[in-house]
């Protein structure tokens, strides 16, 4: 039974892995990786690593793959377009090609001798006898909080740094930043006051042209149009600064469009 399960799961894992590198559409690539990860979780179960198998399904096949799916549908599949431009670098000469094949063949031969000759004989085993509760969440948690406390804490800091880094990399300040949209990050940003509009919807909404009539008409009535800013924010009773974002101005203009303005 365990043998049949192993071959089914191993075949699924290898098929998924081959699918990842052969399918053109990145969306189906992600789906192939999901099937690969679930098959791998079955292999983990066969190795009596129950907690790791559950974490694999929940964290990998669940959370990480959802993240991938979102990014693939955001960026879109661009892998099918033909190769543009010249190849990278100079094409290798004949001597370089021969040397590369020779080195690769030597590596394969050496690894084959090492693995088939000696290494795999020493691990031809069904494994040591395991205590009850091996691989259960209780044992993993016990190890993590006693023997491996420092790696556990370092991993949590790593997760924090990765989360902050992802937000910094992927954020967009098109609504309140410069209009060329190329962000420049600096460690001194921590000490500077944030630009006005930080934390509002204007930060992510981006710079957009205001074509509605009512904010422009409001602004025209007050004679405050400068550039493309509708300046209807001032009509809403708030003080308008020079760096007021356009998108926020549009929001203010929508509000004042419904309110009667004296």
């Amino acid at each position, binding site marked *: 039974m*365990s043998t049949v399960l*192993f071959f089914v799961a*191993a075949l699924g*894992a*290898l098929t998924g*892995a081959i699918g*990842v*590198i052969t399918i053109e559409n*990145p969306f189906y*690539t992600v789906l192939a*990786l999901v099937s*690969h*990860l679930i098959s*791998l979780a079955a*292999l*983990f179960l*066969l*190795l009596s*690593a129950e*907690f*790791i198998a559950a*974490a*694999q399904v929940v*964290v*990998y096949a669940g*959370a*990480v793959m959802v*993240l991938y799916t979102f990014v693939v549908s*955001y*960026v879109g599949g*661009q892998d099918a377009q033909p190769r*543009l*431009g010249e190849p*990278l670098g100079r094409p290798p000469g004949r001597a370089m090609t021969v040397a590369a094949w020779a080195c690769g063949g030597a590596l394969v031969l050496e690894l084959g001798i090492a693995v088939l000759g000696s290494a*795999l004989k020493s*691990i*031809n085993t*069904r*494994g*040591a006898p*395991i205590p009850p509760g*091996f*691989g259960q969440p209780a*044992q*993993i948690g016990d*190890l*993590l909080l006693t023997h*491996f406390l420092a*790696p556990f804490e370092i*991993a949590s800091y*790593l*997760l924090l740094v990765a989360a902050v*880094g*992802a*937000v*910094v*990399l*992927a954020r*967009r300040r098109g609504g309140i930043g410069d209009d060329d*949209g190329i962000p420049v990050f600096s460690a001194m940003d921590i000490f500077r006051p944030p630009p006005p509009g930080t934390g509002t919807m204007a930060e992510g909404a981006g710079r957009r042209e205001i074509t509605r009539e009512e904010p422009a008409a409001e602004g025209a009535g007050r004679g405050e149009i400068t550039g493309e800013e509708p300046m209807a924010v001032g009509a809403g009773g708030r003080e308008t600064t020079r760096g007021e974002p356009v998108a926020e101005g549009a929001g203010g203009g929508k509000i004042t469009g419904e309110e009667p303005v004296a």
Partner: protein
Amino acid sequence: MSIEWYLVVSALIFAIGAGGVVTRRNPLVILLCLELMLNAANLALIGFSRMWGNADGQVFALIVMVVAACEVTVGLGVIVAMHRRRLPIDVDELRELRG
């Protein structure tokens, strides 16, 4: 099943992932192939953990999963930033850092 079968599967998955990293040009797919390689290492770690009857390897695999999640987060953030700047999503076209 003896442990060596698991190690053979692990080696095959690692080789497939490494081949994908070398041959594919979409950075999203390259990240997926990196996941393949990390998972192959995880399978080997858990196989050795079962072989010795010691759960330390499973803790190691768990930490590897944490590192992989961080790598995915930052990598996908870079890809989204590339997409925002209208850069091509193609590792052959991205040569700004080449000397």
